[in-house]
């Protein structure tokens, strides 16, 4: 059921990302100040926005899971957080490259957004050890949802505290009033944001499909060799199961 429409979605994702790349390299004007390296902005910022929204989506699914008790929401919450963490690694790497190119250092502590993101990333990185330290699958799903909700509420608080603590040097591209971003740059940015967001959705769908398929295979296999299944108690720890 998760597989339907996946092909069309994948094609759309590839098309939008290809368009975004074409716009980034051939259409968007060269930044007068930073030159070519500024183009990493079209990758870094959409990745960061998608990852943060993905964490929030994971939290929303966690709320739905706790409210309904439906384990499928837990699987969605898990996959959303899982992919957002992977996107988060990409955000930290691209941010670091940009920082090196425009400020001369790989890591800049005075930069609230990068530091906030690192702290959020560190918190979500504990999601895996936390989740897999709990053996009972029912309890594991419930506790993981509580974690996802707590961490979701933590994100804005953290951004507030870090921003207050530091001087403001991070380029606030959208805050500068009166169109800090020319229309051509804005268009490129929006297309690449759409592309990255579509990529996230596609990957989430792929992982959910794979999980539900492997769950079905496991159930079928268990039905096939039912007498043997009683002795083997090894429960797979890889991910929440889909029914």
């Amino acid at each position: 059921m998760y597989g339907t429409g996946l092909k069309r979605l994948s094609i759309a994702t590839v098309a939008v990302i290809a368009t975004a790349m074409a716009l980034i390299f051939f259409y968007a004007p060269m930044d007068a100040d930073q030159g070519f390296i500024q183009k990493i902005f079209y990758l870094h910022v959409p990745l960061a926005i998608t990852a943060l929204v993905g964490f929030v989506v994971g939290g929303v699914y966690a709320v739905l899971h706790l409210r309904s008790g439906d384990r499928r929401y837990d699987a969605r919450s898990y996959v959303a957080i899982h992919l957002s963490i992977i996107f988060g690694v990409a955000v930290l790497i691209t941010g670091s490259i940009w920082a090196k190119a425009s400020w001369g250092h790989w890591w800049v502590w005075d930069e609230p957004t990068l530091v906030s993101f690192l702290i959020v990333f560190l918190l979500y990185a504990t999601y895996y050890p936390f989740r897999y330290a709990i053996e009972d699958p029912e309890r594991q799903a419930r506790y993981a949802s509580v974690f996802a909700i707590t961490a979701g509420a933590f994100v804005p608080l953290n951004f507030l505290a870090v921003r207050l603590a530091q001087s403001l040097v991070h380029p606030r591209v959208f805050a500068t009033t009166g169109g800090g971003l020319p229309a051509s740059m804005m268009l490129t940015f929006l297309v690449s944001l759409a592309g990255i967001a579509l990529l996230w959705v596609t990957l989430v769908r792929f992982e959910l499909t794979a999980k539900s398929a492997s769950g079905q295979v496991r159930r079928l296999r268990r039905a096939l060799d039912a007498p043997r299944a009683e002795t083997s108690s090894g429960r797979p720890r890889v991910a929440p199961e889909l029914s």
Partner: protein
Amino acid sequence: MTRSRDAFAAILAKDLRTELRTLRSLSAMALFAITTFVIFRFSLDRTSLSGSLAAGVLWATLLFAAILGVNRLFVAERDEGGFDAIRLAPIDRTVLLAAKAVALGVYLLVLEAIAVPVFALFFLGSAAALPPLLLVLVLADLGLALTGALISSMAVNSRARDLLVPLVLLPLVVPLMIAATGASEPVLEAGGPAFDRFGTWLAVLGLYDLVFGLIGYAVFDFLLED
């Protein structure tokens, strides 16, 4: 309402009485804090501290000492079947979280009543910073107690309890530590306490306490279900 209040008082009294008789958490926390101050004295090679360095040493030490208490907070409940008793009792389960958070808050205040004067004795020239610092301590303790009780109640039912508490709690209290050190830094300045942005940081501490208080209230029921 009165039943909840009775249950709250009973659980809190039970916890405080056990702690008073065994002194298991508190003695460990206090000794840990004082030893850590001694280690800081040699690792930083300073005999007096002020400003941001003083705030950093004080809060890092208090936080790590607090983790010792957080680790042990729910151990008796799990080992002696306290969780089952709470589940069976006709009371609101959030009462358990509230009582545990208050108990942890009391431990932290006792810890600070010992550790902060020792800190002042070791590293500060005068005690002038202590009264304004008390306000920061109380607000930060509240946040630490709420998050600590919540994380501890989750970690205690897992396989890697001692590992999970610091792992999850440390990133979660980063905003709290930013605000606490931010408020303490001017207060601990060498030339006597100053109050640069003191109010802003206290507001952030209060906001943190409020948010995590509400989260704990909203989610704790799900942690006790079985």
